[in-house]
């Protein structure tokens, strides 16, 4: 047998998993060669623009579109009633959220619009500009109806009921009660109580929501190019609502320019655009512009939470008592509902701490505003701010250092697996190790000295701590058990091609977070090839295994495990193949660096490309009856727990200008345990990006509505996304507690930053303002709110 020249890295190959390799797809995107939906041009394609309700609540008396039909380029003008003949209505409830109600929603308003921004008339034209020209020629006669805008009065008797059939504006109510809470609070040494408010905000993606629907009437097949996180879910929904077999629906999500949960939902606009393509038998493109994004993209976080915490005099937590009220718009969002955020708030409050008693109530109410639903963090930023806010209040009340009070009450690292007081199951958390790591990073004593020195000079700096837990890697408990056809499993197919390249197709897609990169790292290690010999394909329901896609921080943990299992089996198949071909015992062989290696002599025997060549072109050289299998598909569902929880700690250091109310973010520290870190570079940037979105929520972002339910700041000039100039340095460290529910050991990492940042900053601001005996508990914490607290005459 000829021995080939040693492969340079054949014998000692450093694993790719664990290394901060950069994204192979970054160059393409930076060079402007991405393929976003708006880049896709199809023959006979037309564009749709939607006339949207200018009122929060109004009856549609008459639509006069005659003038619009005569304008240049106009192909069709369609209203909600016409479209309802093509697209069935849909209801955003889940059966495991017991008692949840929401009325049927149509792709476009029928007879009545229930929020400012709801689509009422579709104009299809040769160009988007022509469609917008025609919108201006359409007259709609409205009967304006009273709008329900405030969530605190939504359930009061005098408030109009948005959907009379439901009898009230209540969407969902839930209670958790561990029992004995009243007695514990009555007997406690100390009870602290505070109310926290969270302003509505939204995720602002660089690429807006976009959909290009292409229905081919000749074969009754539908192809949809979509900027989305869950292509298989959308394929199922299009099939069912349009009456097309799911097998004849293909959804493509090539490049997606940011998603943040905003693109995991099925929007009425999506169904309307697809229905128009079915109706017209030609491709129809819809790309939301910035103005309509603000009044149609989901909002999130409109919550008011009353919290009480009972403690012993020495600072031991006895119980939490929580009441969350949240307003979600006129319809629960389809199909994941608008109740999940509130549901997670009451599941998660008090979550990091060891306390025996817990009670929580949740009221989810309808309003005439944009629908709310899952946006990065989903309930965690609220639960974390409530929990950590009241823990800080307790620390101040008892005169105990906030870090010390947390140390006394955090669940011990050796107490897992266990249940939390709200009933959540926790596999394995590392609060104590994270706290220890944090104290290595942050010199708290020095910060406190600096604080005291500056305070004497009228400079007010504060330090805020936030401990968090985060649910990731969900099982079927999230949606599947509630009846939604949203896959909790995900799949991966890996195959060796004739040139020795390993192709990986995954049901989890790429929205900028680096999914394709970490999958390539896993494939490279598990098959035994260099990363540049791996190609990853995502975002095509016709070419990837069925899977749930990207949400609930599941991409790495669920999708990555499927990639790992498929890759391991491919490696086993290749070794078996090589053993047969080389006539050596398979135990003597391994694959590394793209070569089959003789472990006995430590030398490469053949490149895996040679295996590819033999299998594809020279099967005649193989023994009779032997068939190499170079394609492997594996699926993985996390079935050990409802969720795999992660944990972490964040610290914010701020300076508050007490004359101007301006908060300067000086520094932010993060210790995060997301289990096995596949790519530290990407994980750190995920955390930083998520922290920035949390900082936006706590300081800047709010969808401001007037009393008529009209959005007052729906543009990029007026809605304040966080900008680089205001962001602090964000230092990130890791503690790794791999989950035992998978071989890969990875937990989710994409949302924890958003979960903890608002609490840390809120606590830092209140720490800075302690000499003034004021507390800011309404987010976003704006300069105006700070000044009103500090200078009561400004609040008059």
């Amino acid at each position: 047998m000829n021995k080939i020249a040693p492969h340079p890295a054949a014998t000692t190959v450093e694993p790719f998993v664990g290394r901060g390799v950069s994204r192979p797809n970054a160059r393409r995107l930076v060079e402007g060669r991405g393929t976003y939906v708006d880049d896709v041009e199809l023959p006979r394609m037309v564009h749709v623009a939607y006339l949207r309700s200018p009122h929060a609540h109004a009856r549609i008396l008459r639509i006069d579109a005659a003038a619009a039909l005569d304008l240049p380029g106009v192909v069709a003008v369609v209203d909600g009633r016409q479209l309802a003949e093509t697209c069935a209505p849909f209801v955003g409830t889940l059966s495991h959220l017991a008692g949840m109600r929401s009325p049927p929603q149509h792709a476009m308003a029928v007879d009545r619009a229930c929020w400012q921004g709801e689509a009422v008339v579709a104009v299809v034209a040769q160009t988007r500009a022509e469609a917008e020209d025609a919108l201006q020629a359409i007259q709609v006669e409205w009967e304006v109806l009273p709008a329900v805008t405030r969530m605190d009065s939504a359930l009061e008797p005098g408030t109009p009921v948005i959907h009379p059939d439901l009898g009230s504006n209540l969407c969902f109510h839930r209670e958790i009660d561990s029992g004995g809470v009243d007695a514990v609070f009555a007997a406690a040494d100390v009870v602290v109580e505070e109310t926290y408010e969270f302003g509505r905000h939204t995720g602002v993606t660089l690429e807006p929501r976009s959909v290009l629907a292409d229905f081919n009437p000749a074969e009754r097949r539908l192809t949809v190019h979509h900027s989305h996180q869950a292509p298989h879910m959308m394929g199922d929904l299009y099939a069912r609502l349009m009456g097309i077999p799911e097998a004849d629906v293909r959804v493509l999500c090539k490049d997606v320019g940011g998603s943040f949960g905003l693109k995991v939902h099925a929007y009425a606009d999506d169904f309307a655009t697809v229905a128009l393509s079915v109706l017209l038998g030609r491709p129809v493109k819809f790309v939301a512009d910035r103005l309509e994004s603000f009044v149609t993209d989901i909002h999130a976080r409109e919550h008011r939470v009353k919290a009480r915490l009972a403690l012993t005099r020495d600072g031991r937590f006895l119980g939490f008592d929580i009441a969350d009220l949240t307003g979600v718009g006129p319809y629960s969002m389809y199909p994941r509902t608008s109740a999940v955020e509130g549901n997670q708030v009451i599941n998660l409050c008090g979550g990091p701490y060891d306390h025996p008693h817990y009670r929580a109530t949740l009221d989810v109410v309808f309003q005439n505003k944009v629908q709310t639903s899952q946006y990065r963090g989903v309930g965690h930023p609220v639960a974390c701010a409530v929990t950590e806010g009241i823990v800080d209040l307790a620390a101040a009340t008892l005169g105990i250092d906030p870090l010390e009070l947390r140390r006394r009450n955090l669940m011990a690292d050796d107490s897992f697996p266990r249940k939390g007081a709200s009933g959540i199951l926790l596999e394995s958390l590392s609060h104590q190790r994270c706290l220890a790591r944090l104290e290595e990073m942050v010199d708290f004593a020095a910060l406190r000295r600096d604080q005291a020195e500056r305070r004497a000079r009228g400079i007010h700096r504060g330090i805020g701590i936030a401990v968090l837990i985060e649910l990731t890697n969900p099982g079927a408990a999230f949606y599947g058990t509630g009846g939604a056809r949203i896959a909790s499993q995900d799949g991966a197919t890996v195959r060796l091609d004739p040139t020795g390249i390993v192709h990986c197709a995954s049901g989890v897609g790429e929205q900028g977070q680096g999914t394709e990169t970490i999958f390539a790292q896993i494939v490279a290690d598990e098959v035994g090839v260099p990363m540049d010999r791996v190609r990853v394909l995502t975002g095509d329901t016709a070419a990837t295994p069925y899977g749930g896609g990207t949400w609930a921080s599941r991409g790495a943990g669920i999708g990555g495990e499927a990639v790992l299992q498929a890759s391991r089996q491919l490696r086993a198949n290749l070794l078996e193949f090589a053993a047969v071909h080389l006539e050596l015992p398979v135990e003597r062989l391994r694959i590394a660096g793209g070569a089959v290696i003789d472990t006995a002599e430590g030398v490469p025997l053949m490149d895996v490309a040679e295996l590819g060549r033999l299998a594809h072109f020279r099967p005649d050289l193989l023994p009779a009856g032997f068939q190499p299998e170079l394609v492997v598909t594996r699926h993985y569902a996390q079935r050990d727990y409802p969720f795999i929880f992660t944990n972490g700690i964040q610290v914010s250091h701020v300076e508050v200008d007490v004359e101007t109310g301006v908060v300067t973010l000086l520094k932010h520290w993060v210790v995060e345990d997301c289990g096995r870190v596949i790519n530290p570079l990407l994980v750190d940037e995920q955390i930083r990006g998520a922290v920035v979105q949390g900082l936006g929520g706590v300081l800047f972002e709010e969808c401001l509505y007037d009393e008529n339910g009209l959005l007052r700041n729906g543009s990029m000039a007026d809605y304040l996304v966080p900008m680089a100039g205001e962001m602090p340095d964000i230092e990130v460290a890791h503690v790794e507690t791999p989950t035992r529910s998978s071989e890969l050991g990875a937990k989710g990492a994409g949302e924890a930053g958003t979960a903890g940042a608002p609490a840390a900053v809120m606590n830092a601001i209140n720490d800075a303002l302690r000499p003034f005996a004021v507390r800011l508990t309404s987010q976003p914490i704006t300069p105006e709110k700070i000044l009103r607290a500090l200078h009561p005459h400004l609040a008059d």
Partner: protein
Amino acid sequence: MKAPPFAYRRVASVAAASALLREHGDGARLIAGGQTLLATLGMRLSEPSLLIDIRGIAEMQGIAVTGGHLRIGALARHVDVERSALVAQHLPLLSLAAPHVAHAAIRNRGTFGGSIAFADPAAEWPACAVAADAALVLSDGTTSRTVEAADFFLGLYQTDLRPDELITAVRFPLPGRHRRFAFTELARRHGDYATVGLALAGDWVEGRLHDPRIVYFGVGGTPVRAVAAEAALAGGRAEPETLERAVAELGGELSPSGDLYTSAATKLHLAGVLLRRGIQSLIPGEGQT
């Protein structure tokens, strides 16, 4: 957010631009950097039938010192002002203000004259022009006239500009050797339009402040010169009591409206904070003259 249809013409002279303005009246808009206009077109807040592109007009370009003035051509971009050594040398107020004008990408396109002609009440350049006693050169291509910046801004987005006139240049008198400037601004995020901003000028002679200019923006329909506060400080040493008297005068001089994020009362409060801080940075520290 697609602009409605419009015609587009490039012109090479003020006279040609002015002639088109006369011909098309309200239907025509000038476009230079387009940083405000293009957004309003996209949002269909404005539907002109004709855009007149004036970027090629030679006489409106450039930054130069001539005849005792610093002349900034109306077509000079914000970034040109920001990076100009002449501006830094002769009129540091503008150099201080420039980084606050929106973001780098906007400063690379937006023009100095365009900002003044648009007269956004929360913009930096109109206030700086008033504080530095600038004169605006207005022309229709045949007749040219000069208007003091202080007289130019008439009301919210209203100026003394006639329908067929262009601002061709802004002329700043070269300050005397005792003239000092300060600039301070509060915005929710760096580069946003000001919540409240302040442009300050004054002669500091032998420990006393003379001939001060206190010009606010973001607190009214136009840049607002706080004359009573100026009088309270004029001739004095800007000691704390004097400064508080000046701050107290602001209540009678400024009548800000609240905006999305800041109430009127808070704006007035912030105007006082900025005056205290602005005067501190205007006058030299201990040991300086």
